[in-house]
């Protein structure tokens, strides 16, 4: 046990400031966090859906959970069910074989909900495009609020996309949907 404690103490705090290492943005991120709490009364809950990606985007979404990005510290948590989610984080060109599962996941998330498409494939269909097996971009299947380009986008860009979507969440049009 003492070895674990020693390793933790030696590692120290590794968490970095949220996107744009500027302090101005730190304030902004905290304002967003307050916004999340004002609107939802709790943390932002995200359900990630791989709708056909190569797994590259998943690796970088995973990285958001490491101590450097510390998204739970920002009030953002990945949840196991779409029924617990405020936001779907969707990757991949949507494969035909996943189209129905993605629609059902979207239906299962309570309103109002947000969708962030992650990666070039989620934004445009990417190198896979549209074919007999691929529906292409995520917005061909479910409505998308924010699209984050990149192949895969680095974690900081994914975080920026999530925060951008939350800010849009404050706009009345989306709340009415």
């Amino acid at each position, binding site marked *: 046990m003492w070895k674990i404690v020693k390793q933790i103490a030696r590692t120290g705090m590794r968490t970095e400031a949220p996107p744009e290492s500027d302090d101005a943005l730190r304030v902004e991120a905290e304002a967003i966090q307050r916004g999340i709490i004002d609107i939802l009364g709790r943390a932002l809950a995200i359900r*990630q859906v791989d709708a056909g990606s190569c*797994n590259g985007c998943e690796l970088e979404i995973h990285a958001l959970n490491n101590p450097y990005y510390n998204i739970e510290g920002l009030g953002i948590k*990945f949840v196991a*069910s779409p029924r617990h989610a405020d936001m779907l984080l969707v990757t991949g060109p949507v494969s035909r074989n996943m189209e*129905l599962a993605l629609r059902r996941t979207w239906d299962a998330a309570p309103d109002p909900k947000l969708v962030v498409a992650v990666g070039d494939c989620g934004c445009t269909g990417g190198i896979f*495009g549209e*074919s*007999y097996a691929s529906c292409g971009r995520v917005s061909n299947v479910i409505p998308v609020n924010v699209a984050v380009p990149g*192949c895969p986008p680095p974690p900081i860009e994914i975080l920026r996309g999530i925060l951008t979507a939350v800010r849009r969440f404050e706009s009345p049009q989306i709340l009415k949907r």
Partner: protein
Amino acid sequence: MRIGGLDIDVDCLSAPLPVFHGRVTPEGWSAVASAMNDVGGRLLTLWGADRRRNGGGGYAICAAYAVSEGLLWVELPLAGPDATYPDLSPSFAFANRMQRAVADLVGLHAEGAADERPWLNHGAWPARFLPLQQDAFAGPRPLALPVGDYPFVRVEGDGVHEIPVGPVHAGIIEPGHFRFSIVGEKVLRLEERLGYVHKGIEQRFTHLPPLEAHRLAGRVSGDSTVAFAWAYCMALESAAGAEIPARAAWLRALMLERERVANHLGDLGALGNDAGLAFGLAQFSRLREDWLRESGEGFGHRLMMDCVVPGGTARNLDGFTADRMVAHCDAVEREVQTLRRIYEEHAGLQDRLIATGRVQPELAARLGLTGLAGRASGQAVDLRCDHLWPPYDALDARMATHRNGDVAARVTLRFEETLESLRLIRAICARLPGGAVHSQVVLPVTDACGAGWIEGWRGEVFVALELEVERDTVRIRRCHCHDPSWQNWPVLEHAVIGNIVPDFPLINKSFNLSYSGHDL
């Protein structure tokens, strides 16, 4: 030539690894399979090709075997789509799913196969639409249909019930479906249904120029982007008879070892976490992040996508960065050693890992378990050690193997391979040859084929490439990509038998198989 105790007429392809290519008759097809089985050869992969255009002939079913002499690529020409080929599953059980995939994609069927359920076609396109037949390449897209049900094998008996899981999983994971038949919390049977992320990669290859398709190969499975891009480039260079500069081969190996370390660090953290040790995830995910950032600085991409290109590598590595990588390897090694001691001395953790999800060496050999998981079950195969090819012939890579075949063995193997890869990275940085990192690849003027074979972090990755020349333009006629997950997914079904359902995530993670690399 004599391969695997069999006299067979083959050509030797120009490739860094020994690759032989030959045609067989239907009798020869079965004879090769049983001979390979007898000498302990492995079926690497199976695929079908339609070569009707441009006088390429009819159809062909191809198989690649790995034996001590190298890789044997045999093909059996078939006259029409109705022609069948002899079933390979009696010799190699895992051939079954590959044969079902060939039926779904090319329409060629194995004669007498016991299981002919569609595998990649979930009903979203008509069964008569065969995406790898050449008329499907240019024709209209088929009607979109709703996906259908799958006839899972039912387990009957008192108190048996089913748990369906997926395709959308409760985590940040790729999609697939697992059907558990259980009594209480004990697993009687697991049946997998995959194919959810099938996105038509092999058809897409035929639309891309050969010199650009390495980008697609690098997206077959995002965690193995270097391995697949290298295998594709090796296949293309082999078809074109092109040589790459020595420095490029060394840099490719550097990236491949970096990819191995990145994945092992991620898995070691996730395995600790799945057994309730969140500390492990926090520590290893920090190390992995440092590692990816350094890859990003050195090669311009955190996962090193598009860094291996036909003819060499996209970027050079300067001496300053190489020195920094060496210093970083020293630091990571110290940290990994500390964490390894913590893992090994943590009774609660070891209690979850030891004897969980065990695959005995005999079962592993019979089912064809390969790669990292195979080495943890006594299957001593590692391309970096089994053949002499640059730059591994100069590096003396040491293979790690264990015989316990449980989650603990797969964890230990990852620790050992991480340390060995750190050593290799330091050796590569210290002895990196000078010169260019890229040379022009001149495409062939006639139809040609090539093969690429790489030991990725998960196991052997293989790419078979056929080029055809049409009105002075070189096109990809067929590009088949193989991930070792094809072999290992069926073994996972066996590994969980008798374990409790809550241990499944841990067992699954210890294999960490690819969905995208399998579904294509």
